[in-house]
Protein backbone atom coordinates (compact mmCIF):
# COMPACT_ATOMS: atom_id res chain seq x y z
CA UNK A 1 0.00 0.00 0.00
CA UNK A 2 1.34 3.44 -0.88
CA UNK A 3 1.03 6.46 1.39
CA UNK A 4 -1.17 8.13 -1.25
CA UNK A 5 -3.91 5.58 -0.53
CA UNK A 6 -4.35 6.73 3.03
CA UNK A 7 -4.63 10.42 4.09
CA UNK A 8 -2.97 9.75 7.44
CA UNK A 9 -0.07 8.01 5.81
CA UNK A 10 0.22 10.79 3.26
CA UNK A 11 0.39 13.37 6.05
CA UNK A 12 3.01 11.29 7.84
CA UNK A 13 5.00 11.06 4.62
CA UNK A 14 4.87 14.83 4.14
CA UNK A 15 6.05 15.33 7.72
CA UNK A 16 8.97 13.05 7.02
CA UNK A 17 9.84 14.88 3.82
CA UNK A 18 10.02 18.14 5.75
CA UNK A 19 12.10 16.70 8.58
CA UNK A 20 15.67 17.86 9.13
CA UNK A 21 18.48 15.41 8.50
CA UNK A 22 19.09 15.17 12.22
CA UNK A 23 15.49 14.27 13.06
CA UNK A 24 15.34 11.78 10.21
CA UNK A 25 18.61 10.22 11.33
CA UNK A 26 17.25 9.80 14.84
CA UNK A 27 14.09 8.19 13.54
CA UNK A 28 16.09 5.95 11.20
CA UNK A 29 18.31 4.95 14.11
CA UNK A 30 15.15 3.86 15.92
CA UNK A 31 14.45 1.53 13.00
CA UNK A 32 12.08 3.67 10.96
CA UNK A 33 12.92 2.69 7.41
CA UNK A 34 10.68 5.38 5.90
CA UNK A 35 12.79 8.07 7.57
CA UNK A 36 15.92 6.44 6.21
CA UNK A 37 14.40 6.33 2.74
CA UNK A 38 13.88 10.10 2.82
CA UNK A 39 17.51 10.56 3.80
CA UNK A 40 18.55 8.17 1.05
CA UNK A 41 16.75 10.07 -1.69
CA UNK A 42 17.92 13.40 -0.29
CA UNK A 43 21.61 12.44 -0.37
CA UNK A 44 21.83 9.79 -3.07
CA UNK A 45 23.15 12.04 -5.84
CA UNK A 46 25.91 13.51 -3.69
CA UNK A 47 27.11 10.09 -2.54
CA UNK A 48 26.92 8.56 -6.01
CA UNK A 49 28.72 11.51 -7.61
CA UNK A 50 31.56 11.21 -5.12
CA UNK A 51 31.86 7.44 -5.68
CA UNK A 52 31.80 7.85 -9.44
CA UNK A 53 34.37 10.63 -9.51
CA UNK A 54 36.73 8.69 -7.28
CA UNK A 55 36.42 5.40 -9.18
CA UNK A 56 35.62 6.61 -12.71
CA UNK A 57 33.62 3.40 -13.06
CA UNK A 58 29.81 3.33 -13.09
CA UNK A 59 29.35 -0.27 -11.90
CA UNK A 60 31.82 0.22 -9.08
CA UNK A 61 30.18 3.51 -8.13
CA UNK A 62 26.74 1.88 -8.00
CA UNK A 63 28.00 -0.95 -5.80
CA UNK A 64 29.84 1.47 -3.54
CA UNK A 65 26.83 3.73 -3.23
CA UNK A 66 24.72 0.78 -2.19
CA UNK A 67 27.35 -0.30 0.32
CA UNK A 68 27.73 3.22 1.73
CA UNK A 69 24.00 3.48 2.37
CA UNK A 70 23.93 -0.02 3.81
CA UNK A 71 26.70 1.04 6.19
CA UNK A 72 24.79 4.22 6.91
CA UNK A 73 21.68 2.24 7.87
CA UNK A 74 23.79 0.21 10.28
CA UNK A 75 25.73 3.12 11.72
CA UNK A 76 23.22 5.93 11.68
CA UNK A 77 22.77 5.64 15.41
CA UNK A 78 26.32 6.91 15.85
CA UNK A 79 25.44 10.24 14.24
CA UNK A 80 25.24 12.64 17.17
CA UNK A 81 24.53 15.83 15.27
CA UNK A 82 27.89 17.35 16.23
CA UNK A 83 28.50 18.21 12.58
CA UNK A 84 26.13 18.63 9.67
CA UNK A 85 24.74 15.33 8.47
CA UNK A 86 26.04 16.04 4.95
CA UNK A 87 29.57 16.47 6.33
CA UNK A 88 29.32 13.27 8.34
CA UNK A 89 27.95 11.28 5.40
CA UNK A 90 30.52 12.79 3.10
CA UNK A 91 33.30 11.60 5.41
CA UNK A 92 31.72 8.18 5.73
CA UNK A 93 31.62 7.91 1.93
CA UNK A 94 35.23 8.97 1.45
CA UNK A 95 36.40 6.52 4.12
CA UNK A 96 34.38 3.76 2.54
CA UNK A 97 35.73 4.37 -0.96
CA UNK A 98 39.30 4.51 0.34
CA UNK A 99 38.76 1.29 2.28
CA UNK A 100 37.45 -0.27 -0.92
CA UNK A 101 40.62 0.78 -2.76
CA UNK A 102 42.75 -0.78 -0.04
CA UNK A 103 40.71 -4.01 0.05
CA UNK A 104 41.02 -4.69 -3.62
CA UNK A 105 44.61 -3.46 -3.54
CA UNK A 106 43.77 -0.85 -6.09
CA UNK A 107 44.98 1.97 -3.95
CA UNK A 108 45.88 4.87 -6.19
CA UNK A 109 49.58 5.01 -6.82
CA UNK A 110 51.39 8.13 -5.81
CA UNK A 111 54.53 8.81 -7.74
CA UNK A 112 57.01 11.61 -7.68
CA UNK A 113 57.65 11.32 -11.40
CA UNK A 114 56.45 14.22 -13.46
CA UNK A 115 55.26 13.20 -16.87
CA UNK A 116 55.30 16.67 -18.31
CA UNK A 117 58.21 18.98 -18.70
CA UNK A 118 57.61 22.63 -17.96
CA UNK A 119 58.68 23.48 -21.50
CA UNK A 120 55.87 21.36 -22.93
CA UNK A 121 53.40 23.07 -20.67
CA UNK A 122 54.47 26.55 -21.69
CA UNK A 123 54.63 25.76 -25.37
CA UNK A 124 50.93 24.89 -25.50
CA UNK A 125 49.88 28.36 -24.50
CA UNK A 126 51.59 30.00 -27.43
CA UNK A 127 48.53 29.28 -29.52
CA UNK A 128 45.64 31.19 -28.00
CA UNK A 129 43.16 29.45 -30.35
CA UNK A 130 43.60 26.20 -28.43
CA UNK A 131 42.73 27.72 -25.07
CA UNK A 132 39.97 25.44 -23.85
CA UNK A 133 36.57 26.64 -22.89
CA UNK A 134 35.96 24.51 -19.83
CA UNK A 135 32.47 23.25 -19.34
CA UNK A 136 31.41 20.82 -16.65
CA UNK A 137 30.90 17.88 -18.97
CA UNK A 138 34.37 18.29 -20.46
CA UNK A 139 35.88 18.58 -17.01
CA UNK A 140 34.05 15.47 -15.74
CA UNK A 141 35.34 13.57 -18.77
CA UNK A 142 38.89 14.75 -18.19
CA UNK A 143 38.76 13.89 -14.47
CA UNK A 144 37.70 10.34 -15.38
CA UNK A 145 40.78 10.07 -17.59
CA UNK A 146 43.25 11.04 -14.87
CA UNK A 147 45.52 8.43 -13.34
CA UNK A 148 43.86 7.08 -10.15
CA UNK A 149 46.30 8.74 -7.74
CA UNK A 150 45.93 12.15 -9.36
CA UNK A 151 42.17 11.75 -9.62
CA UNK A 152 41.70 10.87 -5.96
CA UNK A 153 43.65 13.87 -4.68
CA UNK A 154 42.07 16.25 -7.20
CA UNK A 155 38.52 15.13 -6.37
CA UNK A 156 39.12 15.31 -2.64
CA UNK A 157 40.80 18.73 -2.76
CA UNK A 158 39.34 20.71 -5.64
CA UNK A 159 35.86 19.17 -5.85
CA UNK A 160 35.16 18.12 -2.27
CA UNK A 161 37.17 20.82 -0.55
CA UNK A 162 39.36 18.77 1.80
CA UNK A 163 42.64 20.21 3.07
CA UNK A 164 45.97 18.57 2.22
CA UNK A 165 46.42 17.45 5.81
CA UNK A 166 43.06 15.65 5.76
CA UNK A 167 43.83 14.04 2.41
CA UNK A 168 47.25 12.97 3.58
CA UNK A 169 45.77 11.37 6.68
CA UNK A 170 43.04 9.60 4.74
CA UNK A 171 45.40 8.26 2.08
CA UNK A 172 48.41 7.54 4.26
CA UNK A 173 50.67 9.92 2.36
CA UNK A 174 52.46 13.11 3.34
CA UNK A 175 50.84 16.52 2.86
CA UNK A 176 53.73 17.34 0.49
CA UNK A 177 52.84 14.35 -1.69
CA UNK A 178 49.22 15.44 -1.69
CA UNK A 179 50.24 18.94 -2.88
CA UNK A 180 52.50 17.53 -5.53
CA UNK A 181 49.83 15.11 -6.82
CA UNK A 182 47.29 17.91 -6.93
CA UNK A 183 49.57 20.12 -9.00
CA UNK A 184 50.26 17.31 -11.45
CA UNK A 185 46.56 16.46 -11.60
CA UNK A 186 45.71 20.05 -12.52
CA UNK A 187 48.43 20.17 -15.19
CA UNK A 188 47.25 16.86 -16.61
CA UNK A 189 43.67 18.03 -16.64
CA UNK A 190 44.77 21.10 -18.54
CA UNK A 191 46.46 18.86 -21.09
CA UNK A 192 43.42 16.56 -21.37
CA UNK A 193 41.07 19.52 -21.80
CA UNK A 194 43.31 20.90 -24.54
CA UNK A 195 43.25 17.53 -26.29
CA UNK A 196 39.44 17.51 -26.12
CA UNK A 197 39.37 20.98 -27.65
CA UNK A 198 41.66 20.11 -30.53
CA UNK A 199 40.21 16.64 -31.28
Amino acid at each position, binding site marked *: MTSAENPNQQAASETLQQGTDYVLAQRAAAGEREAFEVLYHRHFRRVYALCLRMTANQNEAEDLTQEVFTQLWRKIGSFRGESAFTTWLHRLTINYVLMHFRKRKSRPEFTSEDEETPEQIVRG*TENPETMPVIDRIALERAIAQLAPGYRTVFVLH*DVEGLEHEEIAQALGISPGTSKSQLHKARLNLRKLLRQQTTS
Partner: protein
Amino acid sequence: MNCATSLGMLSDYHDGLLGEMESLLVRQHLSECAPCGGVYYELEMIVIKAGELKDECSLTFANEALIWQRMFSPSSQPNT
Protein backbone atom coordinates in the same frame (compact mmCIF):
# COMPACT_ATOMS: atom_id res chain seq x y z
CA MET B 1 62.48 33.48 -11.44
CA ASN B 2 62.47 31.28 -14.56
CA CYS B 3 59.51 29.54 -16.19
CA ALA B 4 60.27 26.04 -14.86
CA THR B 5 60.44 27.23 -11.26
CA SER B 6 57.34 29.33 -11.65
CA LEU B 7 55.34 26.51 -13.23
CA GLY B 8 56.26 24.15 -10.43
CA MET B 9 54.82 26.59 -7.91
CA LEU B 10 51.59 27.58 -9.65
CA SER B 11 49.25 25.37 -7.64
CA ASP B 12 50.76 26.36 -4.31
CA TYR B 13 50.66 29.99 -5.45
CA HIS B 14 47.02 29.67 -6.40
CA ASP B 15 46.14 27.99 -3.10
CA GLY B 16 48.01 30.59 -1.05
CA LEU B 17 50.55 28.09 0.25
CA LEU B 18 53.71 29.98 -0.67
CA GLY B 19 55.70 32.28 1.56
CA GLU B 20 55.51 36.01 1.01
CA MET B 21 58.74 36.26 -0.98
CA GLU B 22 58.05 33.23 -3.19
CA SER B 23 54.56 34.46 -3.82
CA LEU B 24 55.88 37.88 -4.84
CA LEU B 25 58.39 36.32 -7.23
CA VAL B 26 55.76 34.12 -8.89
CA ARG B 27 53.36 37.04 -9.21
CA GLN B 28 56.09 39.14 -10.78
CA HIS B 29 57.00 36.36 -13.22
CA LEU B 30 53.37 35.82 -14.23
CA SER B 31 52.95 39.50 -14.96
CA GLU B 32 55.99 39.44 -17.24
CA CYS B 33 55.65 36.02 -18.92
CA ALA B 34 52.57 35.57 -21.10
CA PRO B 35 52.89 31.75 -21.55
CA CYS B 36 53.15 31.16 -17.80
CA GLY B 37 50.34 33.64 -17.26
CA GLY B 38 48.26 31.60 -19.70
CA VAL B 39 48.95 28.37 -17.85
CA TYR B 40 48.02 30.01 -14.56
CA TYR B 41 44.78 31.33 -16.00
CA GLU B 42 43.83 27.86 -17.24
CA LEU B 43 44.66 26.20 -13.91
CA GLU B 44 42.57 28.80 -12.17
CA MET B 45 39.62 28.04 -14.48
CA ILE B 46 39.98 24.31 -13.76
CA VAL B 47 39.92 24.91 -10.01
CA ILE B 48 36.90 27.21 -10.25
CA LYS B 49 34.96 24.75 -12.42
CA ALA B 50 35.92 21.83 -10.19
CA GLY B 51 34.52 23.66 -7.17
CA GLU B 52 31.22 24.04 -9.01
CA LEU B 53 30.97 20.30 -9.70
CA LYS B 54 30.14 19.42 -6.11
CA ASP B 55 26.76 21.11 -6.22
CA GLU B 56 25.94 21.26 -9.92
CA CYS B 57 27.32 18.12 -11.37
CA SER B 58 26.48 16.93 -14.85
CA LEU B 59 27.01 13.23 -14.29
CA THR B 60 24.65 10.58 -15.52
CA PHE B 61 23.16 9.10 -12.39
CA ALA B 62 22.48 5.50 -11.59
CA ASN B 63 18.97 4.20 -10.96
CA GLU B 64 18.26 5.45 -7.47
CA ALA B 65 15.13 3.32 -6.95
CA LEU B 66 16.87 0.16 -8.10
CA ILE B 67 19.77 0.59 -5.70
CA TRP B 68 17.30 1.19 -2.88
CA GLN B 69 15.50 -2.05 -3.76
CA ARG B 70 18.78 -3.92 -3.87
CA MET B 71 19.71 -2.65 -0.42
CA PHE B 72 16.65 -4.15 1.17
CA SER B 73 16.28 -7.23 -0.96
CA PRO B 74 16.34 -10.50 1.01
CA SER B 75 19.75 -11.41 -0.38
CA SER B 76 21.38 -8.20 0.87
CA GLN B 77 19.32 -7.36 3.94
CA PRO B 78 21.29 -4.68 5.84
CA ASN B 79 20.18 -5.86 9.26
CA THR B 80 21.25 -9.44 8.77
